[in-house]
């Protein structure tokens, strides 16, 4: 078994498993700990507030949007492209089709997937510049924030280079770009549950916690 066979075989399933089980575990641990420690939160818990906050903060209809519309638009675009492009791009669907699961679904047009990939990359650069240029953000940032931004952007960069064979053929990087893409994607999946990227799931809990706190004090959610 060579590296590519390893990467698109066992490593792929392991990384998807770590990602899924890891995130579910993070959520479960959070809930268990919260049940023990946040007695007041659970006494006042109301689905009404929680659902209201999700509706308000998952669509661009909140206070932050009005405060910083450009950043919000970019943040929404970043997350939308980051989630949608990898799930609905044609090459990934072909992997599902040829897998044991034999799943098949309609793919995004190649051109659109390309633009979404470029959008993720451009916004990642913007996020980096923003983090470096704002004194407040710089003070709050740790090394892991920068590393995670790079880990998040790498699969998209390598996807673009691989699909377009931008580095040509007959050289080590160019010939192995799809392998590098798979490995960087797996790296991102694996780090999600153990890092700040776990906000993929924990966002919903912190949002809910804030909503219940605000709700019981009758502040605007």
């Amino acid at each position, binding site marked *: *078994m*060579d590296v*590519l*066979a390893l990467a*698109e*075989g066992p490593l792929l399933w392991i990384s998807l498993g770590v990602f899924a089980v890891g995130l579910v575990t993070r959520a479960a641990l959070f809930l268990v700990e919260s049940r023990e420690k946040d007695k007041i939160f659970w006494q006042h818990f109301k689905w009404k507030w929680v659902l209201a906050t999700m509706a308000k903060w998952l669509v661009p209809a909140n206070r932050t949007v009005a405060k910083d519309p450009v950043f919000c638009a970019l943040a929404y675009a970043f997350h939308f492209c980051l989630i949608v492009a990898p799930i609905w791009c*044609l*090459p990934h669907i*072909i992997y599902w*089709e*040829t897998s044991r699961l034999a799943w*098949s679904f309609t793919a995004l047009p*190649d051109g659109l997937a390309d633009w979404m990939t470029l959008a993720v990359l451009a916004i990642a650069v913007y996020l980096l510049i923003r983090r470096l240029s704002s004194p407040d953000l710089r003070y709050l940032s740790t090394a892991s924030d920068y590393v995670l931004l790079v880990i998040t952007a790498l699969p998209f960069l390598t996807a673009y280079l*691989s*699909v*377009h*064979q931008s580095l040509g*053929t007959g050289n080590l990087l160019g010939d192995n770009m*799809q*392998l590098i893409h798979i490995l960087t994607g797996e790296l991102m999946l694996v780090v999600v549950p153990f890092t700040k990227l776990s906000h993929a799931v924990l966002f919903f809990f912190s949002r809910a916690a804030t909503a219940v706190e605000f709700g019981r004090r009758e502040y605007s959610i």
Partner: protein
Amino acid sequence: MNTAPLSLKQAVLVLALLVLCAPAAQAQPDEVLIDNSKVLGPLKRSAVAFPHGTHMAALDCLNCHHRMEKGKNTLDAGALEEKAKGVRCQDCHAVKGTRIAPDLDPTQTPLMQAFHKQCLGCHQKTAALGKKTGPRTCAGCHPVAKAKAAAKAEPKAGS
């Protein structure tokens, strides 16, 4: 068709001829351009230059060509001639509504998936066994440079 077993002498002669012809056959590999634009419409990736000869040297015809009936491959390898019905994948594996040969066994696997399963699936399995095999990446079969060159060239109907 004469199906009498070969005598030892005949067999040696045939083998010798095969061995003598082999270098010539390898020097000019039997390449097939897989362009299914008639079935699939405009292609999203470049057509595949399929080295049929290389595969013939390594595999039996019925490893790939098949007509499955009750889980068994009932295709007669002797009937595999270039223009015969049922030789090409698209004869049976066609997208709904565009089936080319309705009298052949229907199949639920659309053409593109059939190709990917057949080619990529076998390459992946063979690689997992540590054996030498064909490409397993998108660009390995669908090179981008060729797609660009094809787009520049005069547009023509698929073969």
